[in-house]
């Protein structure tokens, strides 16, 4: 990362930190969500036809919280900085530097959101493979951060963007994941499907499928590519 991207990233971080409410909510919402949802979700899984225990439910809640937070944060931050980005490019900053700064910011948000949710799960639940759990949560959060960034360049309004994030997330969480006991090929098309399965495997046993990691990483890279292409098109 070059000095221009680093300066831009530092400025974005300062801007975010200047609104302490955002930071506080970012830190306390995942644990609250994990604790509230963990106990109830195993009952709900039985309703939908899935088969989850309280342990896997808590781990899934961490993934969901991280995905929702990083997706919405990326969408709102990138959507708010569109004009500033255009001005920076007009003023002579390399387009690539702006893109690298946004990619780094989204990755940091995804890692931070994933880590807070992961920490509360590890503190409250006996997880078979914490390392795999952390990796799956961060991959899922990164995929949603890429979705948020891509949406910010396609959809203009905050209200419409929020509705799309809610729509994609609810489908992903309740229908395409282990909660709904989804099978067949179509669940593969949702970004959280394989990270969710990885989370379930990591919670119950350390035997995690390498193919799921490959699919999750490939899908996340594809989403990052889509977000980068949308960014490039916007700044062109």
């Amino acid at each position, binding site marked *: 990362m070059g000095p221009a991207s680093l300066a831009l990233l530092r400025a974005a971080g300062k801007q975010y930190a200047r609104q302490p409410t*955002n930071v506080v909510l970012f830190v306390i919402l995942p644990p609250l969500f994990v604790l509230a949802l963990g106990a109830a979700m195993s009952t709900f899984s039985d309703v939908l036809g899935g088969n989850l225990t309280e342990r896997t439910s808590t781990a899934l809640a961490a993934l969901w919280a991280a995905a929702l937070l990083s997706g919405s944060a990326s969408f709102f931050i990138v959507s708010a900085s569109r004009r500033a980005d255009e001005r920076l490019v007009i003023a002579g900053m390399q387009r690539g530097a702006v893109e690298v700064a946004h990619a780094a910011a989204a990755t940091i948000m995804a890692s931070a959101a994933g880590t807070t949710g992961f920490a509360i799960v590890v503190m409250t639940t006996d997880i078979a493979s914490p390392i795999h759990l952390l990796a799956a949560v961060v991959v899922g959060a990164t995929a949603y951060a890429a979705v948020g960034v891509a949406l910010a360049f396609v959809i203009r309004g905050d209200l419409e963007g929020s*509705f799309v994030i809610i729509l994609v997330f609810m489908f992903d969480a*309740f229908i395409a994941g282990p909660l709904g006991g989804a099978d067949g090929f179509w669940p593969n098309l949702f970004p959280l499907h394989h990270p969710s399965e990885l989370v379930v495997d990591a919670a119950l046993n350390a035997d995690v499928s390498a193919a799921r990691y490959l699919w999750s990483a490939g899908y996340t890279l594809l989403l990052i590519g889509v977000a980068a292409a949308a960014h490039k098109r916007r700044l062109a």
Partner: protein
Amino acid sequence: MIALELSLVLARQYLRNALLVSLLIIVPTVFISTSYYTTRATDIEIIVTMAGGRRPIDVWMPDLHGAIMVPIVTAFLAGIAGLFVMLDASRADGRLAIAGVSPRTLAATRVLLISSISAGVAFLAAGVTMIHSRPEDIAVFTFANVLVGLSDGFIGALAFLAAGRLGGAYLMLFVPMIDIGIFQDPMMISGEPPAWMKWWPGFGGTRLAIDAAFTGRGDDWAALAAAVLWAAALTMVALETFTRRAGLR
């Protein structure tokens, strides 16, 4: 009168946004229909208010899921809409104040607009569930969901004023899910929920809606009182906060 005219003009601005209108129709339709068809086809026991007491009854699980998705979707959409109506207000109301519109009128306009969107979303969501299963008392079921929508619409608006655009969005993505999607959902919390869950804004409206859907009698007066009190209190707080804010410009 000016408030009504202004809110009509502002509502027209939202109605001109084809993507927004499409999403307002697509989101409830997709959520409620999908939840109906993906739920296991079997009975589930829930507790409802009947003959003056709380009694267990067996209901068809897809019908219950379709019914509970109405307040969940209403709360999500009304909350997010309330948040961004206030965001737009923060940009436009300064100019309207300079143009001579009084703070009380500006506040009343925003309250009317948020109330209309919340009620509209509740009617739409209740209408979608009727495609799949007919609640026994449609009028009380819809009314209960309007109360949920009003409460969450004003929570969204106040969340923007308290936490800003991003913080407010975080709150409105999680609060409806925790309140109505977990604490008030009879599929999540089996039996009678603990007392502290009944203090949440979604409690009264959701309980009234479930009773109306499956017993045909929305006669849980405590739930009705809780829902009306939350909706009225949040409307008054929003009106007062909006007025003060508009007066400070």
